[in-house]
């Protein structure tokens, strides 16, 4: 039974409900116990002990746990052989100490801050005032480094100059730590200390952000990669994606196009899925969390980013459950550090131009090819049109040779009102003439007192479009505020607020299906920009884009994305942290576009009529409004037992809600077309429309980590999710995962080589994640309530009572039984670090099974009259690997630093392992065993040499026209005497065979860094080693669609009797027969691109300290300056695909200053 049925199976729901209740109870219990603990602990100076023959240090430690005292003593002086028996109940710590230290030769004294110092009898406790300075290896002060007495919470932080002062007992051990640096210990003394910390790099103590927490990198068992801000800060970026491209193996970033405002899209490990009713696989998008909240990474200022972590496998992403099936990207923004206010400014000016431009034919080649195509048509019953005359050719040649003294058009003898154009315009140069500017500025203020830190920043970015006459201006404003306050020892509050405001002003050309394309069709080189009489040229359906840009109105987009997250962190007792955060987001978008009619003129300014596609005048307004609320509550318990058993547990609840509304209005016939005011119209029935949807998600999750002796690592994750997107009986999903690792380097047998092999870890994981199948794009009723059959409303182009009839449509056929699809990942990895971290890296191999994908389950006869309802009935499997290698070194004098990072990955060997919708194995649909990207086509064996040879072969299945000499001769693979598609199935593909696969393989990125003294140099290469594609576009095939598709210079190498070995066949209009997918034209799109070259200079400290500036760096960056590829220059190998707004190559000048 396919049709909607609400009545069934209340049982499953009940069970689930119960589960949720249990989860809630668990959390409640934890909270409750915590309060008990708080109540017990913080009034405690008494302890209860029952220990026999115990190591005295263990007794101290036990007392530390039960009271708020800390003990300071010298390890060397208190022998571990000293055993004590103690049995006390609710006894004052001091009494216990008196008891156990009696006759031990030791005594104690209590200092401030509940510090108890144990010293040998007779020695007085000498409290020193320790002063010192913490610096990095270059001698630069480290601000905000922590200095504390080891084993205690007593400590301080360094000031702006790296200095600190601390009172500490004589001989006590100080621990000096700073994020990203190796922690050091020093014995307290009265002499001023200078402590030099070295950078941690990939080393053992590095902490990475993981789901709902952090973890030491060395203890990770999942496939996780991290990039820090240092990789993003050194140059200007269009958006975050721009900066991440190529840095992390198997994080594919697609810039899509170079049009201002274009969003980057992300994909992890090439995970692909299928969509019902589509024969193009869907490249999935990972879940992106900014400071723990799902956000669009394109809307944040790259300058605000502190680190980016990618969770690639199911086990590391499992904690995010429902939406993490396609990987997770965790973005952490910069946080203030304690200390006086620091003001940082970074700014840059960039000038950019297209990476590639199509080289169009000039008027000579155009006329020749046009007439050739027409002759081909005439000779074979194919497409024909009015050709260029002899006079046209002569006039065009005259203009080419002497543009100053010859006209670009003359009156058409057949229609004296219109020009026949004979100019020679390079439209690419007209549209993309030079360099377009970009600039960005970011100002940030941060700092903090002992308890509270803050950071406030304001970013501004402005980009002008490459298409000059479009005058597109894109502006982004990104204010942000972050406050973190440790109210008490056990209570921390933090508040994050950030906002993105975008203004995008572009011509209304997008509204008439003319925007975004890099080259309009029907833009022949013979047409000038202006008629000889000075009016804009055009005279046709699609006139020249310069005129449309100039005259047709604007399309303005205004977006506001406002985020607030409040978080409360409670540490009721040691080892336990409870966190609750609530996020509220409001996204609004207002788009306003107007069309202005304008006249087209012919010979000597004769009015020809209105340009067709901007008439009548109109203005449209779209208002989108999205509210998103998320609540996360989780508790973490972390402790190490008996020094060897590290244990961490996390339990939490995640709840999300989204409410989307859209309203749009369109009014035609404006009273003043140049005043795009929606109220000032004479439209008798303006159009209004709207959408309103809701969606909700609940998930409960848990994670357990266990580490034995730093050697054996185990992590278990589980998550239980419910979504509003499926029918109540099918809406819940449970996803477990497990991962384990072995730190071989920690084994005793490795001790000898510990100096060489700093780290060696193997790890394996297995996990399954559900995917709730959210389609990309804005929410619609169909996408948010896919299991409910609704009746779409609309209008019909037929007047009922004088207005277009309002319609309520027929519901789609829907199967309510579909549910989550599942992504299973198996991952095997190794991490290593050699020679004091000089060389480090990791390698991962994975298998991804994408199960129960929602597709049209089976083909049904057309008499059904509706699309087949989708069901969970396809599986995909992909395998891949990724490698990252780092090398870094420095000269002994600490002046020269150099490093290299290589990432290399392969993915997307995706095969269809189950598919019910294609019983006949038709080639135009998915089929079991197929590798995605497989391209079937014909085998090109050259050209027919004579018309007779061509006529002898039956090519009628490919194209109805008569085949001639110079048309492509395909191999008759099945030997049936004719060239055809057979039945278009794998069993009978006719004369087609598998001619290649269009999936890119071996993507790499290589980052080289050198700094010497005050200079720094970075270069970054990125590319794909193997990529083939079939270019089915008119810049490739001359006149592919019809006479209006303009050929490129590349296609001038066409067959003629004099040029029998040409790359292209004879020229035809709509020469479909020659444009079949075929082996000869599978192009190689491998490439190596120099994404970035940066040279920076930081002014010496001495020089700038006089002007009270702490740091001042100038740099120049070149982006996308060089590309090496065998692909022809009509295409940018990075986007492969024609008619996309070109990517930028650019040169930037920037400055970074810190006050």
């Amino acid at each position, binding site marked *: 039974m396919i049709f909607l049925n609400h009545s069934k199976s209340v049982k499953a729901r009940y069970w689930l409900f119960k589960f949720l209740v249990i989860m809630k109870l668990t959390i409640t219990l934890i909270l409750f116990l915590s309060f008990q603990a708080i109540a017990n602990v913080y009034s405690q100076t008494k302890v209860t002990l029952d220990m026999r023959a115990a190591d005295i240090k263990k007794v101290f430690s036990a007392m530390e746990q039960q009271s708020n005292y800390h003990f300071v003593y010298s390890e060397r002086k208190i022998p571990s052989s000293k055993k004590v028996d103690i049995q006390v109940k609710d006894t004052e710590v001091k009494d216990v100490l008196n008891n156990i230290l009696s006759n031990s030769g030791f005594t104690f004294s209590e200092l401030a801050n509940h510090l108890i110092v144990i010293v040998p009898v007779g020695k007085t406790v000498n409290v020193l005032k320790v002063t010192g300075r913490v610096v990095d290896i270059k001698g630069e002060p480290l601000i905000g480094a922590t200095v504390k007495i080891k084993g205690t919470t007593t400590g301080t932080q360094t000031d702006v100059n790296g200095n600190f002062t601390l009172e500490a007992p004589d001989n006590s051990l100080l621990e000096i730590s700073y994020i990203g640096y190796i922690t050091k210990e020093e014995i307290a003394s009265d002499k001023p200390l200078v402590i030099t910390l070295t950078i941690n790099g990939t080393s053992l103590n590095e902490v990475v952000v993981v789901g709902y927490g952090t973890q030491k990198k060395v203890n990770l068992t999942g496939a996780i990669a991290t990039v820090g801000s240092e990789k993003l800060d050194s140059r200007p970026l269009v958006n975050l994606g721009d900066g991440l491209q190529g840095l992390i193996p198997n994080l594919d970033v697609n810039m899509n196009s170079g049009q201002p405002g274009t969003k980057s899209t992300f994909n992890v490990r090439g995970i692909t899925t299928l969509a019902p009713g589509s024969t193009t696989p869907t490249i999935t998008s990972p879940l992106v969390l900014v400071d723990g909240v799902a956000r669009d990474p394109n809307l944040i200022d790259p300058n605000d980013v502190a680190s980016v972590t990618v969770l690639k496998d199911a086990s590391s992403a499992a904690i995010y459950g429902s939406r993490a099936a396609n990987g997770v990207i965790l973005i952490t923004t910069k946080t203030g550090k304690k200390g006086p206010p620091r003001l940082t400014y970074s700014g840059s000016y960039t000038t950019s131009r297209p990476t590639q431009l199509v080289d169009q034919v000039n008027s000579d080649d155009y006329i020749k090819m046009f007439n050739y195509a027409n002759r081909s048509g005439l000779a074979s019953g194919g497409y024909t049109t009015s050709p260029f005359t002899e006079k046209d050719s002569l006039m065009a040649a005259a203009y080419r040779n002497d543009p100053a003294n010859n006209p670009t058009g003359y009156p058409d003898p057949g229609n004296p009102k219109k020009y026949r154009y004979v100019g020679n315009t390079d439209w690419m140069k007209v549209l993309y003439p030079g360099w377009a500017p970009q600039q960005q500025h970011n100002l940030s203020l941060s700092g903090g007192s002992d308890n509270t830190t803050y950071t406030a920043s304001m970013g501004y970015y402005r980009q002008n479009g490459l298409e000059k006459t479009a005058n597109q201006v894109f502006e982004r404003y990104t204010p942000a505020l972050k406050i973190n306050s440790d109210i008490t020892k056990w209570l921390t509050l933090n508040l994050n607020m950030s906002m993105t405001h975008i203004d995008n002003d572009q011509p209304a050309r997008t509204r008439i299906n003319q925007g975004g394309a890099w080259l309009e069709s029907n833009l022949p080189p013979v047409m000038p920009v202006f008629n000889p009489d000075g009016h804009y040229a055009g005279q046709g359906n699609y006139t020249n884009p310069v005129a449309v840009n100039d005259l047709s109105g604007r399309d303005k987009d205004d977006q506001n994305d406002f985020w607030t997250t409040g978080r409360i962190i*409670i540490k009721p007792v040691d080892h336990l942290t409870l966190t609750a955060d609530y996020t509220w987001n409001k996204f609004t978008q207002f788009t306003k576009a107007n069309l202005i009619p304008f006249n087209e003129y012919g010979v000597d300014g004769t009015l020809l009529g*209105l340009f067709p596609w901007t008439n009548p005048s109109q203005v449209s307004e779209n208002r989108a409004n999205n509210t998103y609320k998320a609540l996360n509550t989780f508790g973490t318990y972390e402790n190490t037992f008996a020094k060897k058993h590290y244990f961490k547990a996390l339990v939490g609840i995640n709840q999300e809600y989204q409410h989307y509304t859209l309203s749009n209005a369109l009014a035609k016939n404006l009273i003043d077309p140049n005043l795009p005011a929606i109220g000032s119209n004479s439209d008798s029935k303006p159009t209004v429309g709207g959408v309103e949807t809701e969606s909700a998600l609940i998930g409960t999750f848990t994670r357990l980590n266990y580490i034995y002796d730093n050697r054996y690592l185990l992590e278990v994750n589980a998550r239980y999710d419910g979504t509003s997107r499926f029918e*109540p009986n099918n809406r819940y999903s449970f996803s477990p995962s497990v991962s384990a690792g072995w730190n071989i380097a920690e084994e005793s047998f490795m001790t000898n080589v510990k100096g060489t092999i700093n780290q060696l870890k193997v790890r394996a994981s297995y996990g399954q994640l559900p995917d709730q199948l959210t389609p990309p794009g804005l929410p619609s009723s169909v996408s948010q309530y896919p299991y409910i059959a609704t*009746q779409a409303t609309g209008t019909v182009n037929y007047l009922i009572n004088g*207005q277009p009839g309002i319609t309520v449509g027929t519901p789609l056929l829907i199967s309510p039984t579909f549910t989550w699809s599942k992504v299973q990942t198996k991952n095997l990895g190794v991490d290593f670090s050699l020679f004091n971290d000089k060389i480090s890296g990791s390698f991962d191999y994975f298998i991804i099974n994408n199960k129960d994908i929602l597709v049209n389950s089976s083909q049904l006869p057309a008499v*059904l009259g509706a699309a087949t309802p989708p069901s969970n009935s396809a599986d995909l499997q992909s395998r891949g690997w990724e490698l990252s290698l780092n090398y870094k070194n420095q000269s002994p004098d600490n002046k020269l630093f150099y490093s290299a990072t290589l990432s290399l990955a392969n993915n997307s060997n995706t095969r269809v392992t189950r598919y019910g919708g294609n019983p006949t194995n038709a080639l135009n649909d998915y089929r079991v065993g197929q590798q995605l990207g497989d391209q079937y086509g014909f085998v090109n064996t050259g050209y027919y040499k004579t018309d007779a040879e061509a006529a002898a072969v039956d090519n009628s299945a490919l194209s*109805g026209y008569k085949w001639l000499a110079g048309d492509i001769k395909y191999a008759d693979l099945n030997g049936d005497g004719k060239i055809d598609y057979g039945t278009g199935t794998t069993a009978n593909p006719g004369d087609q065979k598998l001619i290649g696969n269009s999936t890119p393989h071996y993507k790499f990125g290589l980052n080289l860094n050198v700094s010497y003294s005050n200079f720094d140099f970075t270069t970054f290469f990125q590319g794909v080693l193997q990529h083939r594609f079939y270019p089915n576009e008119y810049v490739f095939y001359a006149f592919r669609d019809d006479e209006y598709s303009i050929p490129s210079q590349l296609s001038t190498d066409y067959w003629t009797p004099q040029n029998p070995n040409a790359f292209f066949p004879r020229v035809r209009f709509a020469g479909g027969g020659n444009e079949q997918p075929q082996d000869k034209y599978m192009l190689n799109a491998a490439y190596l691109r120099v994404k970035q070259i940066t040279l920076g200079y930081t002014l010496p400290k001495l020089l700038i300290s006089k002007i009270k500036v702490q740091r001042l760096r100038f740099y120049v960056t070149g982006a996308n300056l060089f590309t090496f590829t065998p692909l022809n220059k009509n295409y940018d190998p990075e986007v492969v695909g024609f008619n996309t707004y070109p990517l930028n190559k650019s040169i930037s000048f920037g400055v970074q200053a810190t006050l």
Partner: protein
Amino acid sequence: MKNKHIIYLVSALVLTIISCKKEGFLNRLPLSNISPQTFFKNETDLQLYCNQYYSNLPAQTFLRADDNSDDKANQTINPLLAGTYTIPPAASATDIAGTGAYSAGTATINGTGTNYNFSLIRSCNFFLSNYNKAAVSDDVKNIYVGETLFFRANDYWKKVKAFGDVPYINTYITDTTKTVLYGPRVPHQQVMDSVLKDLNFAVKSIPVTPAQSGRITKYAALALKARICLWEGTYRKYNANAGDPAPYLNAAVEAAEEIINSGAFSIYTTGKPQSDYYNLFIQEELQSNPEAILPMRYLASILTNDITRQLGQNGDGYSKNFVRSFLCTDGLPYSLSPLYKGDNTPDDEVTNRDPRYSQQIATRGFDLLNGDIITLPRIGTTNTSTGYQCIKGRSSSLAAWNAGQSTYDFFIFRYAETLLIEAEAKAEFGQCTQTVLDNTINKLRDRVGMPHMVIAALVKDPKSDFPALPVLLDEIRRERRIELGSEGFRLDDLKRWHAGNLINNPETILGMKLTPALKAQYPASQVSNIIVDANNYIRVYPNIIARTWTDRLYLYPIPTQELTLNSNIKQNPGW
């Protein structure tokens, strides 16, 4: 510590937030969409649902109409008639511009508006299984049931014309495992019997004056019934083993006469025989036009069309064969009339011909656009392939020519067609008396000032396309061809008359005579590529002398996938 109270408070708050969310949190129902559970309450609901059908009304736009017949020879040859039409792989495949290559999309068989798509049928069946919920009287319900059946009948008829026997689905299918999906093709006659039943219900229940202007009227239902029944009646008569034609011819007459006898309609005329016919098709307002049984209305800034701009372009053109069929002003065919001046020049050819010639084809003096006066027939892609440029519906108004801004109305059902149906159906019975002719054909002739068709005076045209046909029927068919030129009836007519082999006539792909003397008057750019035959007639397709009709072309092939999915479906003969 005092702070613990704060902790309790905050934690309690958090707990409250969590606890108050129940299963209900995940139950989200559509906020801005109609769902079947709550629809079909009242008459408005019934109307709103039925409105969706109206995009399927057979409006006559003239655009590239009859390119698939002997009337026209478009620059781009019709793939079916060129023999290059290939079997669609799936019902959802579209033939890209007749190249024989298919892509996904809604399949529309080139030039017929027909496809193997059953979504309209499904929409109708959904209505039929749900309308009863509405709290309105049966009479009111039946109006909309009538509308639904009107559209279902028309859609099935189109499928029968295209495919012959077709599966007949008259229930709303929700269970995709049901055998009804896998049934065999139902015989042509049986489907048409159901179509007639639907039509009869529609005629009976739809009022003469509908609740809203623009909705289907009783007369529109009658006009459709007359059209379909004439088609089916003559199909049965001229095609072997097709069944008894009588009930359908009777029904056609019955329906046509009910319209005629109502007196509600008449032939539009203002007493200007040289322009009335032309002007009829560039009317801003057909609602009150006496010839409009059902018009398709357009209103400025509310609903406009782009047809006027495209008419007379697209390399379209009438064939020599079509042009020859115009009578001379004495009522005789060119082969017999002493008034015929020959066709050495365009001016000669139009002289003394039926005034509908110059009102359908651009001849000297025609204002193509805003003062762009025709002197020589325009030839070329943006004009015409044959020199006979189609101007039915084309006006010289710049306002109507501006893209997408035309407000000229179209006919959906034109009274003239009804008259032609009456005459032909009566003639097939042998009941076409002079009175019948005077009430039908001769009304059309009066408008254009042509002499009456008089049975006693009819002379068989020696060059007739139907040499064996009785002269009366022959001349009625000629009248139909001329009056309904470019209205998209011709291929259907050839099929029902079993006259596909008329396509073989080489004249159906020839254009006007382009003598060297005439050619010399043209700018070279227009005619340099024009190829002519031995008699100087323009050859539209240089690589063929004639098109070849084969009998398989009477039916389109069933998409391959349908045969694979349902072994009960067999392919049409010859495909």
